[in-house]
């Protein structure tokens, strides 16, 4: 048997779907395979031709740690001065910058930080802040037969009303909340993908998670208001100003004019129902969404 030093292996140049730029993985097969494992509906292909433009990101390894080199995308916040050692950390960080890259590639879209689920023919989106339970709620809705579009970021075409699925597996924080159902807990255990002790990507099937490029109209914008005290889940009217403030806070398409963003979000609100979902139990919250918008999954 001949041992091949990784130093002698050429770097892998990889195209992701329709993105014009490439990413180079130099001695980072684990990172590439880890990242591919969280994508759904993406055509990921390696290219070998010379003369391609410089990759948008070059991943390499030094002393067992991932290194980030890019002129267009800053390194993830935690990568300085030393990158992560674990594949899960590298994938999760690349995941976030991947979404920034999407915003650079598609200047005809703006991106909302939100979760989105197709319920009754349209998308119900949850533009909520951190730790509001978005990922747990969309998992609960998937258990009821509804298709997840995203648990993190939803691109929306300018001048339109359709959300675009990014085809990225939802990532749940661990440990799971104590008040989730045994079914939910078993589902997560069974479908756990790339994970560490703090978070796990969940392997949803195609019927449960929309593939990259799938679109659907946005029908409702629902702000999440999770209560620590027990309350019955219920949908309340939400004000336009409160909803807009939350959406602006969660928008990150910074390459677009803020006036354009403001007008796009205002138009989006004109076409959608605006609600606040007050809840303490995520199962009840999902049931409330299903009964209000579902009409059969």
């Amino acid at each position, binding site marked *: 048997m001949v041992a091949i030093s990784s130093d002698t292996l050429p770097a892998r140049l990889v195209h992701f779907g329709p993105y014009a730029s490439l990413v180079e993985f130099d001695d980072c097969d684990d990172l590439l395979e880890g990242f591919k494992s969280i994508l759904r509906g993406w055509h990921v292909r390696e290219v070998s031709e010379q003369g391609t433009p410089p990759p948008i990101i070059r991943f390499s390894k030094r002393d067992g740690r991932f290194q980030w080199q890019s002129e267009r995308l800053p390194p993830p916040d935690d990568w300085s001065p030393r990158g992560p050692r674990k594949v899960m950390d590298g994938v999760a960080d690349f995941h976030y910058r991947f979404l920034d890259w999407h915003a650079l590639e598609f200047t005809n879209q703006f991106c909302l930080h939100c979760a989105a689920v197709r319920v009754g023919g349209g998308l119900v989106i949850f533009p909520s802040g951190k730790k509001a339970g978005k990922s747990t709620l969309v998992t609960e809705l998937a258990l009821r037969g509804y298709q997840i579009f995203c648990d993190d970021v939803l691109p929306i075409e300018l001048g339109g009303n359709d959300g675009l699925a990014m085809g990225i597996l939802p990532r749940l924080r661990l440990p799971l909340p104590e008040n989730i159902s045994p079914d939910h807990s078993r589902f997560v255990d069974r479908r756990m993908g790339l994970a560490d002790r703090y978070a796990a990507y969940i392997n949803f099937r195609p019927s449960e998670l929309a593939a990259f490029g799938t679109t659907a109209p946005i029908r409702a914008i629902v702000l999440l208001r999770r209560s620590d005290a027990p309350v019955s889940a219920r949908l309340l009217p939400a004000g*336009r100003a409160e909803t807009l403030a939350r959406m*602006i806070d969660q928008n990150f398409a910074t390459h677009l004019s803020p006036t354009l963003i*403001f007008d796009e979000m205002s138009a989006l609100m004109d076409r959608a129902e605006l609600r606040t979902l007050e809840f303490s139990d995520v199962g009840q919250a999902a049931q409330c969404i299903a009964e209000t918008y579902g009409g059969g999954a």
Partner: protein
Amino acid sequence: MARLLRQNEWLDVRQLEGQIFLIDEEGGRIHHLNETASALWRLLDTPATRKEVVAEFRFLFPEEDPVRLKSAIKGLLRDLVETGILKKSERQPPD
């Protein structure tokens, strides 16, 4: 000479349900003002000194502890100046 605080005239003001959103095209940001910041913004339709702003808020909120109110308003003014929502200028001498 006390410096006047005034609204940044380059911001595009949008009002929705009584709440104020300020669009900063140059800075690439949208600011949403909370209730207190909105009241302050409206107060500065006419430029005023920090002392005048604090006095006005004392008049508007007589039930509030004056020391805490002054400290809160000073902090808010500082934040609004730092984010470019408000500007400082010299008081013009009377005609």
